């Protein structure tokens, strides 16, 4: 049966090139190979988010009058609703963490060097998309915390000269965060961002197949490798299973909660703060004037995006200590600001 099926497609599409590629594809083995698994794990979590997201969309109502109630209905009445939403909630947190680890590990291994510049840029854009997913999804339960987090988020671009107010207005869909904002965030979260994500992730994965895994400069003399099919894929699958086990443990021990429904007229409650992955931005905004805070973060993101073109030494396969220190400084800043935000609010 299997042979007949393969034969059917082979006859029509000539799968010999695909078979040759699968047979020849290998993954380098060295002391830093462990970090390779985070790319596959991110892909696995994205798949999980798509599946649970589609399921949640069957019950969700993007209207301020029903949004909170519809999520509550899923959590309390729909069979396994709490499970599906909790997987989506924890999956988002895990995904952000895994994509950050994947990005910083590839940064410190200088995997962005020639010829993988475009792959790096796509990767940074995908991280931006993941954060955009979390931001747009955050408003959907229409809770007090999600409402004010969105207010801060949509008002942040307004400090930019010329286009700032216009961008905020497009995101808000009115004079303030309200029904129009909820519809827009839902559309972004379920239609526009997924389309962009599919496009960017496909290109990113395609390029990773074309170039293969990057070997760090310190390991360039190592020639060991394992076959992708089935060896690496099996290990990848084991990592996915491990990730899923940890995720399900978190889901069952700490199911996603649902805060109180927002009353848009009432003030923001004391002690309000965003999710852990936005805490460093939150703390920066608290400690510095918004123009300096947003200006510096924007500049750092731009430098991060084009780092393959700035780090010329890495492109020539030479050590580039300056960029290693720059990456370390960014990481230390993010972690210390996150800790500060936890300690001072």
């Amino acid at each position, binding site marked *: 049966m299997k042979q007949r099926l393969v034969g059917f497609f082979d006859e029509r599409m000539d799968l010999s090139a695909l078979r040759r590629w699968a047979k020849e594809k290998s993954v380098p083995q060295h002391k830093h190979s462990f970090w390779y698994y985070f790319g596959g794990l991110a892909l696995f979590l994205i798949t999980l988010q798509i599946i649970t997201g589609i399921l949640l969309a069957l019950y969700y109502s993007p209207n301020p009058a029903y949004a909170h109630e519809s999520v509550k209905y899923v959590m309390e009445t729909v069979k396994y609703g709490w499970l599906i939403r909790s997987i989506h909630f924890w999956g988002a947190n895990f995904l952000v963490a895994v994509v950050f680890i994947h990005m910083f590990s590839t940064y410190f291994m200088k995997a962005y060097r020639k010829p993988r510049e475009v792959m790096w840029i796509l990767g940074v854009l995908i991280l931006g998309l993941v954060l955009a997913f979390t931001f747009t999804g955050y408003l959907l339960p229409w809770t007090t915390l999600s409402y004010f987090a969105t207010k801060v988020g949509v008002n942040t671009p307004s400090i930019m000269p010329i286009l700032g107010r216009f961008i905020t207005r497009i995101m808000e869909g*009115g004079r303030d965060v309200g029904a129009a904002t909820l519809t827009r965030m839902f559309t972004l979260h379920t239609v526009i961002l997924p389309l962009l994500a599919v496009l960017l992730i496909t290109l990113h994965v395609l390029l990773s197949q074309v170039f293969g895994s990057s070997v760090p400069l310190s390991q360039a003399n190592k020639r060991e490798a394992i076959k992708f099919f089935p060896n690496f894929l099996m290990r990848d699958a084991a990592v996915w299973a491990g990730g899923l086990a940890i995720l399900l443990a978190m889901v069952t021990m700490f199911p996603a909660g649902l805060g109180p429904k927002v009353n848009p007229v009432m*003030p923001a409650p004391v002690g*309000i703060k965003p999710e852990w992955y936005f805490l460093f931005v939150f703390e920066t905004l608290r400690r510095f004037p918004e123009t300096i805070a947003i200006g510096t973060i924007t500049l750092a993101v731009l430098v991060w995006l084009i780092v393959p073109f700035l780090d010329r030494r890495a492109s020539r396969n030479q050590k580039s200590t300056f960029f290693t220190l720059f990456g370390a400084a960014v990481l230390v800043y993010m972690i210390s600001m996150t800790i500060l935000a936890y300690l001072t609010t």
Partner: protein
Amino acid sequence: MNRILGGGVAIVAAYILYPVIRFLSPPSVALGEQSKVFVTDTGIMKRNTAKYFKFLDEPAVLVRLPNGTYTSLSAKCTHLGCTVQFRSDGDYFHCACHGSEFAITGKVMRGPAVLPLPKYQVSVSGEKIFVSVPIEPA
């Protein structure tokens, strides 16, 4: 020839993008009927308390001062838009999002906000308290 073709493509792109961008930006709402709103009756609010309400599609606050008079301001923090909280223990507004503080007049007492809260006009007609469009920045 390539330049002409490129220019043509750019014009077509602009033809398509312009209406899309205009479509994304919501039309401005005429504020005529909203420029004056009824908030509450006199005698309902105790001294040193605040009442929140929606005005010009944004949160606003009416405060009854310790001397019995009323004042009204926008409750939208001028930093990044959170709704500020009236603190009766010190007659000021506190923004829980990033910690800005404003005096009862709207003036910034503590950043990161730099602009004051816009002040509104309060008028009492019979036993009804109305708030109308901003008269001047604090």
